[in-house]
């Protein structure tokens, strides 16, 4: 298990809830099992041009493009606030090279944080993110160096992939057994009038209820083949039935992404619903 002493298995996933400044005014984040920061990169990133969002039925396509202030401003301005939450704090990081990961971990490892999530699955950037998994050797080195740079747990975040087992195997060979499954899938829609993609960048990442069957398949595949894997199930979790399905698939923790944007109070109400139904 990733965490020995987590309050509950509900985790805010990386991105939709930003770095919690807004959400913490609406709900008490200390009631969550863990919270994950928006992915941080070595340099600041402006993100992609607008429109960055298209709604689809039961889902959402985004091309935010990892907008973030970069590691230095993050450490200076945001991390001190994040440290204060009394819950597990997972820092999501992405880089282009093993050295990028190493450098970022070094800068934050002494803060009051609990784990790293290596984002190898953002579909909305041309370099880094999901592109790293195209190169098994690079992917492996990024994991290896990250593992060597910290005593804290490392979590590998992957997307829907036809090589999911290979990617998991490489991580497990580096003694990293924690996975977040899954990130968004590449998707797009067109404007019927102009013939242009509705997102400025063309392709974005699909999240929300529509991706649940794919996420369940990835979680199940990994857990069936690697029972020792500790898995944060992520993709379309909105209610306790969704949570139950992810549990049956083999998830140990439950990530809440898009649902937080739909209803910022949902993480707490879902956690309560779950505890009333299945825990208490």
């Amino acid at each position, binding site marked *: 298990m990733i965490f020995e002493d987590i309050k509950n298995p509900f985790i805010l996933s990386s991105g939709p809830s*930003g770095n919690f400044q807004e959400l913490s005014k609406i709900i008490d984040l200390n009631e969550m099992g863990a919270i994950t920061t928006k992915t941080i990169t070595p340099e600041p990133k402006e*993100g992609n041009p607008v429109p960055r969002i298209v709604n689809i039925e039961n889902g959402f396509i985004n091309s935010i493009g990892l*907008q973030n202030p970069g590691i230095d401003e993050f450490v200076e301005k945001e991390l001190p606030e994040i440290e204060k939450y009394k819950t597990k704090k997972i820092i999501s990081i992405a880089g282009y090279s093993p050295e990028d990961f190493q450098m970022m971990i070094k800068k934050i490892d002494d803060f009051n944080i609990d784990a790293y999530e290596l984002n190898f699955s953002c579909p909305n950037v041309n370099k880094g993110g999901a592109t790293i998994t195209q190169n098994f050797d690079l992917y492996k080195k990024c994991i290896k160096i990250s593992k060597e740079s910290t005593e804290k747990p490392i979590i590998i975040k992957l997307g829907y992939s036809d090589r999911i087992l290979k990617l998991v195997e490489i991580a497990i060979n580096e003694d990293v057994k924690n996975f977040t499954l899954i990130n968004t899938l590449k998707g797009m829609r067109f404007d019927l009038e102009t013939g242009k993609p509705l997102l400025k960048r063309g392709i974005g990442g699909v999240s929300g209820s529509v991706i649940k069957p794919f996420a369940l398949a990835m979680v199940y595949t990994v857990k069936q083949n690697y029972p020792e894997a500790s898995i944060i199930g992520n993709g379309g979790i909105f209610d306790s039935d969704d949570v139950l399905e992810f549990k049956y698939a083999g998830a140990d923790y439950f990530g809440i992404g898009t649902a937080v944007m739909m209803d910022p109070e949902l993480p707490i109400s879902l956690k309560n619903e779950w505890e009333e139904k299945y825990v208490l």
Partner: protein
Amino acid sequence: MIKGKILEKQIKNEYMYLKVEMNENIHIEPGQFLMLKNDMDKNMAKPFSIMSQDGKEIEFIIKIIGDFTKKLSQKNIHENIYLRGPYGHGFIEKIDKNKKYVLLGGGCGAAPLLHFEKNYPNMVENIKIGFKNSFVENVVPEYKLIFENIEKKTPIDWLKENDFENIISCGPKGMFKALKTMDKNSYVSLEENMGCGIGMCKGCPVKTINGIKMVCKDGPLFKLSEVIL
């Protein structure tokens, strides 16, 4: 989520007027918006301004353009919608309160201008709202309206014929671009596709001379001179 019951509904062509009664009393400042949902399902919420508020009763003018607004338009009177908010800053927080403003609107974007005029009549010097369609005639007093198809004139044309200094504008991007070429003290209320509506998801950025801001959290009103369109 707040529950809203549809009290009145009128549809003409692509425009819809809606009166909704909320089951909670929240105060919405002119310029702020609500995130609406048609059902308690797993679809995302969508941002809408209101045109007026009277206690728990709020009014909308909505353009039916896509999936969400189509479904909304198929709801019957007494059926429920769901909403959260208010979000964003009221206009009043962003403008110089010692000045009087001309309110310049285009289409449904005009809702918050009507709301502003109602709540702060003393701060309004004049108001003109361009519509392609005369549906709003019964909903919005006539003197405020310009029917672009009949008068062959837009609110911008009207503005050019007059000598006003301070402008608050809501409408299509083209209108803001035209305003930008004129030497006025203008504020614009921006629209962008939204996810969360509260600043967390980074879905609704606008480039400003002070860096990237979020329309939902930092706006929706911005000083036009600060915005990079």
